[in-house]
């Protein structure tokens, strides 16, 4: 199993969610987060004085999936969340040791 963490632009969340549902992803965890990458924040202007904010608002999606489906998930997020502008985000893939559904006690792929 793989645990996939993607940090994307917030306005792409709906599209990514729909695309992942379409390929069979049944659940995900979404958080509003702040961070920076090469984009290095943005500038706000008040009475002519510039303030740069170092942290930009992003959305973090976390998805647990089977080994078989993992490449497709990464590819889908990559395609849908891409705007080709700076700040599109990153996708990380981790090995997942185990998964348990609390209600039934199922473990492994069936718990996903």
């Amino acid at each position, binding site marked *: 199993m793989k645990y996939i963490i993607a940090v994307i632009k917030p306005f792409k969340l709906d599209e990514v969610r729909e695309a992942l549902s379409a390929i069979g992803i049944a659940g995900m965890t979404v958080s509003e987060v702040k961070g920076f990458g090469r984009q290095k924040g943005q500038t*706000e*202007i008040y009475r002519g004085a510039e303030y740069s904010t170092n942290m930009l608002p992003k959305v973090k999606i976390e998805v647990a999936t089977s080994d078989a489906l993992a490449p497709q998930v990464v590819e889908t997020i990559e395609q849908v969340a891409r705007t080709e502008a700076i700040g599109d985000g990153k996708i990380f893939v981790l090995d997942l040791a185990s998964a348990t559904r609390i209600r039934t006690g199922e473990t492994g792929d069936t718990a996903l």
Partner: protein
Amino acid sequence: MIRRFLTGALVTGGSLVAATAAFAQDAAPAAAEAAAAVPNPGNNAWMMISTVLVLMMILPGLALFYGGLTRSKNMLSTMTQIGAAACLAMLIWVMWGYGMAFGPEGNAFISWGKFFLAGVTSDSTAATFSDEVISEYVFISFQMTFAAITAALVLGATVERIKFSAVMVFTAIWLTIVYFPIAHMVWAGGGLFFEMGALDFAGGTVVHINAGVSALVAAMMLGKRKGYPAEPMPPHSLTLTMVGTGLLWVGWFGFNAGSELEADGTAGLAMINTFVATASAALFWMLTERAVLHKGSTLGFCSGVIAGLVAVTPAAGNVGVFGAIVLGAVASVICFFAVSKLKPMFGYDDALDAFGIHGVGGIIGAIGTGILHDPLFGGPGDGSVGIGAQTLVQVQAVGMTIVWAAIGTVIALTIAKLVTGLRVSPEVEYDGLDIGEHGERAYN
């Protein structure tokens, strides 16, 4: 009332020209005629107060009313669009707007002359409904605020997704091809609706139907906000909306009682009507909410206040006090159904209900004025024009205004789209127009 005035205005304009010509030839009679045209300081003072009261309706009134209704990420954008559109309207008004609406030369649709206020001085006067006059600069300023708020009203339908640049281009073109001609047609001597005998005391046709219909057309051309209507988009601050509502109501006395152009009894009638029609409408909106199994809400109260103010605008000095109460109640109930049933049924995204309240309320007010003007219903009319005949004239004026405003808005928005692209990117729309279009936030 304004229609009575404007015949006077043109006559005075003509007599001033005649007086100037005569002055050179025969000083004594001309001087006597000119001496009669000194503004009554009382009237002048009331009109200057009325003018700034209407400014208060725009900033801060409308800005807070509309701003509170948007989501917090679009608060500044909404207020800035209103302020900037009003400023642009003021500058355009003194350049060519006043000439196009109230110029000395003209036909049924448009006037010309006095562009860039040519020939207007501190001594120039504009007629009122009696022998009194007011300073022309005061009249120009008063009418300027009407153009400014009307342009700003339209934006209630397009907020949260339109580019700031598109707002500015649209405002300039829309005022020129829609607002100025309609203001001329309704209020200027020789204007189309004016000659038909249409009654519009303070701008039901010119301001509210015009802005409301344009707003509807603009909302449809621009398309829905992302997520509408699936995702909830509740007002971010009903507190500020309530503040804006109060400021609008106070300012509206300048709008309505000021439209008499004198501080006389008819201005008093317009004033009391502006109180009672609004009070009636506010309570009837809440009662309607209660009747359809909701709770009477703050937003309902605020919406009712605006619906009542809109409906009483064409009627202010043209109906009796109890006619105004009925008008407010009827308009309020119909506007409630327009925003809660009609809008979802047709699926257009009139974000802040500019059409549902100003368009629909204005139409009810304009047609209701034709009925309630008659002495049979306690109105100030002399009964010389039958209720049916007057109402027919009102309906015709409303119909033609709707067509003119709709076509003009399509043209103005199409040009704005070609120049600016009209709509912000999906990313800016998601993040909010405050940061995306202006680089600042309303709340930190």
